[in-house]
């Protein structure tokens, strides 16, 4: 083993046991948080919505199977009389409450200090017969469109749950009781029947947290009846007190606040039937800090007990993975759900908000060595030296993987670009991985749409047709052999870009429409500012800020391709269009010389090359500035751009023809805003400067940038300081988000060969961390290549 791998440490025996219990999926027959389906019992019942999973191509072939399985598995829920006379939102609220009251198991695990066991559900859509028929027809027609768009390599889209920061602050402050008062006051001002029905659904949903409290009081009582240890009995009695109060009442202590958060959070996952992707906490070190400080000051809490509470809180989130426990060792890219927490960051006047809880949470992350909750640390020009030092040390000790870094100044510019008032932008937080949103009032549909930018190159060079099938996809922009010059080529490229953008936005808009009509989530809507005011569900555009984010994939591949054609074909005239087209159609099989020319002689983004960087910037600005003008007609949500690119740089590799940057069909596309792997000859500082040149404020979602460093880069104190300075300079010159892999290629190669010895090895992929040995072989190879190219 070449490096000392990051592993769990400093855990109490209780926490150690709880952590091991989590990892023993196959052994814990008494408790698995696997999906439980609950149906209406009607023959037309539907539980599975393909548009919720429209961005996960890996599951496309299984969707019909999931649909049928969920129906067959569903435990029927007894419904009140005249159920179908209620509005759909009211039906959802009533149904959900029934499930919580009578069906969803509630369990207290040995020794745990935060409770709440089962939350993975598949819930009935509670449609009546007519609605169901319409829904099925429209949804499956949409699915056909999705498959066509995906298979043509253009991209994918869905209406994805999660990916939001609920107003947890408010829950801690006023409890659901306070929210109920707000709903009632709103009802008293309303006369419209439809709105009143919706407000009634919200009111019914306030029952959910009370029901869960009741269930867990019973569960704690059951545990108490069995418990012999006086110490544990004392804890259980305290717990009983806590769960009986929160989250309905406002929280009074740190412990209550953590329990309130977990109940509130887990119920959202249950209500949306989605195991957590992107359901994020926002600035948790800020809103929990007053509880923490007061308890410490008043002697109710020690720092060590706070640590243990956080350990227990942390473990709960990982049970989301029981969702796919049966395919655990082969989770591919899906090994990260992204219940994101945000730490540190600036205040309204640019001041640093790092506090002792920030530091304690960083320690907890280091000690737990678990995937969830995923941390994102906000840095800015006034970040405290102590924070930066801790961050650098953790990157050193944990192969770079414990968190993602978000850079405030540029991120805030992006939010102002989309319309957030400048005086509010400081209190933003990312969801999922690095997708910037506001807290508690914003559904930005991050990762709802994924667009393969490199496809526009293929279409421009083939008159709008797919190069393999010959099928027409985009407009006929002409035979490239007849292009009079560079501008004809560029026109063709941008027209094809318009086409793929419009196509993907249409697909997303239809998913958004279907969800807005058939998928209200009143429980979540209680927690998103704007929904009560407007008496409008979060899925119908009820939030204050409503966006759908288009994540661009393959930016550098597209930019390098455009730059290569412009430079080598039209400016230098060193290669003819004819030769280029022949080579692309035959995947360079007979013209390796040309491929080498394209790799070695064309300008490449990522090297601070003025021409290539300008091509990339122009491309990025073009589509991001266009997309922000587009809207989803059904909900009025605006589209916005970003670069997460998740795993699609692998998924769309075989569906994208060979490209003029010298990439052969099947080779990975570029990811996030990274340059094409291996072309960065000018070193990491140039790569950072190129990212900075993109003008990323027009991509408010933010952009994934991954850098790999050799561990020797951080070998001693002196180099640690240099690395901290590098991060400060990145904040000044680079992108919105950075993830770092600090690993040598030898370790990765060994881990691929001998996974058993490397189960703990976490790496960063594209905006998220994952256990290396759980990744698919293509992605493993790609990460090894990146590490080999590290400084």
């Amino acid at each position, binding site marked *: 083993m070449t490096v000392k791998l990051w592993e769990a440490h400093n855990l109490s025996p209780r926490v150690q046991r709880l952590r091991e219990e989590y990892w023993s999926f196959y052994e814990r027959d008494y408790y698995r948080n696997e999906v439980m389906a609950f149906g209406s019992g009607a023959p037309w019942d539907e539980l599975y919505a393909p548009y919720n999973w429209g961005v996960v191509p890996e599951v496309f072939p299984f969707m019909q199977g999931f649909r049928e399985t969920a129906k067959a598995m569903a435990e029927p829920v007894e419904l009140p009389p005249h159920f179908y006379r209620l509005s759909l939102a009211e039906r959802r609220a009533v149904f959900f409450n029934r499930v919580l009251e009578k069906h969803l198991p509630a369990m207290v695990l040995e020794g745990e200090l935060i409770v709440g066991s089962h939350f993975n559900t598949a819930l009935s859509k509670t449609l009546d017969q007519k609605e169901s028929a319409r829904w099925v027809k429209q949804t499956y027609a949409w699915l056909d469109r999705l498959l066509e768009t995906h298979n043509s390599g253009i991209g994918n889209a869905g209406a994805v749950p999660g990916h939001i920061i609920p107003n947890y602050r408010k829950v801690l402050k006023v409890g659901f009781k306070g929210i109920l008062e707000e709903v009632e006051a709103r009802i008293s001002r309303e006369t419209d029947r439809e709105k009143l029905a919706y407000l009634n659904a919200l009111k019914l949903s306030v029952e959910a947290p009370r029901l869960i409290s009741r269930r867990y009081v019973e569960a704690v009582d059951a545990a108490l009846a069995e418990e012999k240890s006086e110490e544990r009995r004392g804890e259980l009695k305290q717990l009983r007190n806590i769960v009986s109060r929160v989250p309905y009442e406002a929280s009074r202590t740190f412990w209550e606040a953590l329990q309130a958060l977990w109940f509130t959070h887990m119920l959202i996952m249950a209500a949306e039937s989605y195991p957590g992707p992107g359901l994020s906490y926002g600035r948790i070190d800020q809103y929990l800090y007053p509880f923490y400080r007061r308890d410490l000051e008043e002697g109710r809490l020690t720092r060590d007990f706070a640590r243990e509470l956080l350990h227990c809180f942390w473990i709960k989130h990982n049970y989301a993975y029981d969702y796919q426990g049966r395919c655990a060792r082969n989770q591919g890219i899906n090994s990260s759900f992204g219940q994101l927490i945000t730490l540190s960051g600036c205040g309204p006047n640019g001041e640093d908000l790092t506090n002792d809880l920030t530091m304690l949470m960083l320690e907890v992350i280091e000690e737990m060595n678990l995937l969830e909750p995923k941390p994102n640390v906000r840095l800015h020009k006034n970040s405290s030296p102590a924070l930066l030092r801790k961050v650098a040390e953790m990157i050193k000790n944990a192969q770079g993987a414990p968190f993602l870094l978000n850079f405030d100044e540029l991120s805030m510019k992006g939010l102002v670009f989309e319309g957030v008032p400048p005086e509010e932008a400081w209190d933003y937080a990312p969801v999922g991985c690095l997708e910037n949103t506001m807290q508690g009032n914003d559904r930005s549909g991050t990762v709802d749409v994924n667009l393969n930018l490199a496809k526009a190159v293929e279409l421009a060079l083939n008159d709008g047709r797919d190069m393999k099938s010959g099928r027409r996809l985009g407009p006929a922009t002409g035979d490239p052999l007849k292009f009079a010059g560079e501008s004809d080529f560029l026109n063709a490229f941008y027209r094809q870009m318009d086409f793929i953008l419009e196509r993907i936005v249409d697909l997303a808009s239809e998913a958004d429409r279907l969800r807005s009509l058939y998928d209200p989530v009143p429980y979540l809507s209680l927690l998103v500012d704007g929904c009560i005011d407007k008496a409008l569900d979060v899925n119908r555009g009820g939030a204050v800020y409503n966006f759908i984010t288009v994540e661009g994939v393959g930016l550098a591949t597209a930019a390098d391709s455009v730059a290569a054609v412009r430079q080598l074909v039209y400016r230098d005239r060193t290669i003819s269009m004819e030769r280029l087209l022949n080579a692309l159609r035959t995947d360079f099989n007979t013209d390796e010389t040309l491929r080498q020319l394209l790799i070695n002689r064309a300008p490449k983004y990522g090297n601070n090359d003025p021409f290539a960087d300008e091509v990339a910037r122009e491309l990025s600005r073009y589509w991001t500035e266009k997309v922000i003008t587009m809207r989803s007609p059904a909900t009025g949500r605006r589209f916005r751009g970003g670069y997460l690119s998740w795993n699609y740089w692998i998924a769309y590799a075989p569906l994208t023809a060979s490209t003029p940057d010298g990439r052969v069909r099947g080779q990975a596309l570029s990811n996030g805003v990274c340059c094409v792997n291996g072309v960065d000859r000018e070193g990491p500082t140039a790569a950072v400067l190129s990212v900075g040149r993109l003008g990323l404020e027009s991509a408010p979602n933010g952009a994934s940038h991954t850098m790999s460093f050799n561990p020797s880069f951080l070998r001693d104190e002196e180099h640690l300081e240099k690395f901290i300075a590098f991060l400060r300079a990145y904040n*000044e010159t680079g992108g919105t988000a950075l993830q770092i892999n600090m690993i040598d290629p030898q370790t990765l190669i060994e881990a691929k060969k001998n996974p058993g010895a490397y189960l703990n090895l976490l790496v960063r992929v594209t905006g998220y961390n994952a256990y290396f040995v759980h990744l698919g072989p293509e992605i493993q190879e790609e990460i090894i290549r990146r590490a080999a190219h590290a400084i």
Partner: protein
Amino acid sequence: MRKVGEGWGGSLPSNMDTLTATIFNIQPMSTEDGPGIRTTVFMKGCNMRCLWCQNPEGLAARVHLVHDTLRCIGCRTCLNGCERGAISDSGSGYKFNRGCALCLTCAANCPARAIRVIGQTVGVEELVQKLLRDKPFYDQSGGGVTFSGGECLLQHRFLTAIMPRLKGAGIHVCIDTAGHIDPPVFQAIAGQADLVLFDLKIMEDRLHRQYTGVSNALILQNAAWLGRAGIPCWIRVPVIPGYTDSEKNLRGIALFLKENMPSLARVDLLGYNDLCANDYAMLDRDYPLAGTPRVAESAMLHFQEIMAQSGAGMVSISNYQKGE
């Protein structure tokens, strides 16, 4: 006294009298050549021939070509395109014979970048612009630019011109030198630098001549001047097993430093590595130290202790075999 550039095998770059330099690499994000994050400029030509030379492509002052067989795809564009017929296929890589006029056409046309031009000519302004690029990184880290080599002081006129330009732009400038240089020239340049990285290798002159090709007299003279003049300086000692790593030698260096450079900021002990073996292969040279083992951590720690007696502010060790 030897004159600059008269060391055996050395010759001055042909462009010595104009304000251009011949360099063979610009390395951004360098973290090993002085404080902070730096850009290191490797200048071509050296007047010493240390057996363990880590940058053999910097030895010759003139520009030359090498063929990288790993990158070559065998398209023969170079062979067919050379008007002088100066390239031949030796069976184990291409050779460039005396007919080569350094027109560089072959390198420019090679699709695979398999013909590397070792050495490029660069003007003062052009280089300043390149070096300014990373200023945000220098500023945040207390870094800057380091001129290394080869022996950068062989191109002292270029340094004389470029150093004030860089310093005027607020950039910290280091020179990294072996010190085998005419003292007036040495003093003129070192006096302008913000920091001098100065190599000391062997104290016994007989061995110094044997392993580096030159006497250490000038080197020690220049080092002593640095001490007297109080120029900020880091001493760098390559720890080469069998050559520089005797206890006697290291104690000799420590003693010299204590006597001559009482306010020395720092000594770096740099363990031997063979990362340069590939470069020798590409240059078609034998690597004299092939098979030499890396230095063990315990040995480095011992040497660090010895060097601490020099009274230097800090003694760092790097590049050794961890554990036993």
